[in-house]
């Protein structure tokens, strides 16, 4: 049985909503039930954003999760806010370029990804830390197949952002490689 509850959090500009959407679309392509639910409202004025993606082979009830199994934190405020909520035994993916604090919970698997640094190193600092993180996640935990994610990227970049496809593909690769080759 497949059932993933994934929380993704960061600053407004970091593309966390987009990352979530790509995951949800990929899940949908694979025939799963999916849902995507953003934080919304004046919170965003504070400069933070988060969303919850659920990928499951059962009909989805609640679309938020008080105990996500996977949590991606792209910045420090999100790290502090959401680390305590992760399910015991869950996966915490941390953008260590922006999060200096260390996770003190011992019941979590922590996957550190210095996404901004990787972007600088390999992609001229392009703003694709979210897709790097996605690559890293999929390398570590195949919530969806990499191919589905790539198809989902096409779908989600349709229209004005089409030209960003190649860049994002590269970013996915960078994240994937970072984890696959061992960080």
């Amino acid at each position: 049985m497949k059932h993933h509850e994934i929380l993704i959090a960061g600053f407004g500009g970091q593309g966390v909503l987009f990352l979530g959407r790509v995951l949800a679309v990929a899940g949908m392509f694979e025939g799963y039930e999916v849902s995507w639910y953003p934080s919304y409202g004046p919170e965003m004025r504070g400069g933070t954003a988060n969303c919850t993606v659920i990928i499951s082979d059962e009909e989805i009830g609640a679309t938020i999760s008080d105990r996500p199994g996977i949590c991606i934190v792209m910045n420090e405020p999100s790290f502090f806010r959401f680390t305590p909520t992760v399910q015991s035994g869950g996966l915490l993916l941390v953008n260590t370029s922006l999060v200096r604090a260390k996770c003190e919970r011992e019941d979590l698997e922590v996957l550190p990804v210095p996404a901004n640094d990787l972007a600088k190193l390999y992609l001229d600092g392009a703003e694709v830390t979210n897709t790097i993180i996605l690559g890293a996640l999929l390398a570590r935990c195949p919530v969806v197949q990499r191919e589905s994610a790539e198809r989902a990227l096409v779908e989600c970049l349709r229209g004005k952002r089409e030209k960003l496809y190649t860049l994002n593909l590269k970013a996915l690769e960078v994240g994937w490689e970072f984890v696959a080759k061992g960080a």
Partner: protein
Amino acid sequence: MEKILMRGNEAVAEAAVRAGCRLYFGYPITPQNEISEYLSFRLPQVGGVFLQAESEVAAIHMVYGAAATGARVMTSSSGPGVSLMQEGLSCLAAAELPCVVVNMSRGGPGVGNIQPAQSDYFQAVKGGGHGDYRLIVLAPSTVQELVDLTYRAFYLADKYRNPVEILGDGMLGQMMEPVTFREPEFPPLPPKDWAIRGKGSGPRKWVVCLDLDPKGLEALNLKLQRKYRLLEEQETDYDTFGDPEPEILLVGFGTVGRILKSVVREGKKEGLKLALFRPITLFPFPKAALFEKAKGVKGILVVEMNLGQMLEDVELVVRGKVPVFFLGHTGGVIPTVSEILEYVHGLLKEEIRV
């Protein structure tokens, strides 16, 4: 048919366009802004009209005007904005004008907040405006159902010449789920020969919402009541799920309905015999079906994102024959599966005393 991942607010907007809605009047309010944002580019594409009104009061009366011409028209808002539409809704109901109003409900009362809530049930179902009128109220629980009920809303509005409210909430409006747009087949509708379009060569017509003669106004009201009774006979809808012989019947609508589905499923794993009764039409309320379903259960647990509103309609059906319990959250707090399960366990442990 192709599935698209779509936000609830955008899905309802697209469904409206496909249902033939050609005019939208509305005023921004979170958490339903994507409806107007979507329609602001989508309606002009099909030769329709998107107009941002100066207020919800103006919006609902623009709807009144457009509806009077026989066009399919809609507005959308949330709590405070819908409150401002109450006089207008009463007028639309009195003039028997078809239209669709979407309420992506949020935490109240007052300005409250913008998180999901269901505390506008009374307003929607009992009639927040003055007078003996009713709206047809539909409560979708998934984005797909939001789409399907939007088609149905326009159909019912025209069939019964009555305003229809789609009562969603912030969660339904903001979330994305895969949807397909299967256009439903509805029986043909009578021509809108009452519509005001300029008299042309025919006799002149008018649409009003007043009758200064008590006898006349009472007659209108009795006509409306007959319509409401007909609705109850012909259009109630609900969903059931779970154990065919449940110990506890869970009752919830909209977003809570889907959460309760998870509760039923999780409960089964824990050996609980649960079933869900989810009204899809809140008005007309599926009384007969709930009455049947309630037979033989040990207890009924109503769960709402308010402090007990649909509860009253459930109690009116059950009439003390089965104990009815209530679990509610409000103000944007969303009940969780585990908390509901715990409550159910508690009920069963106490062997349910009336």
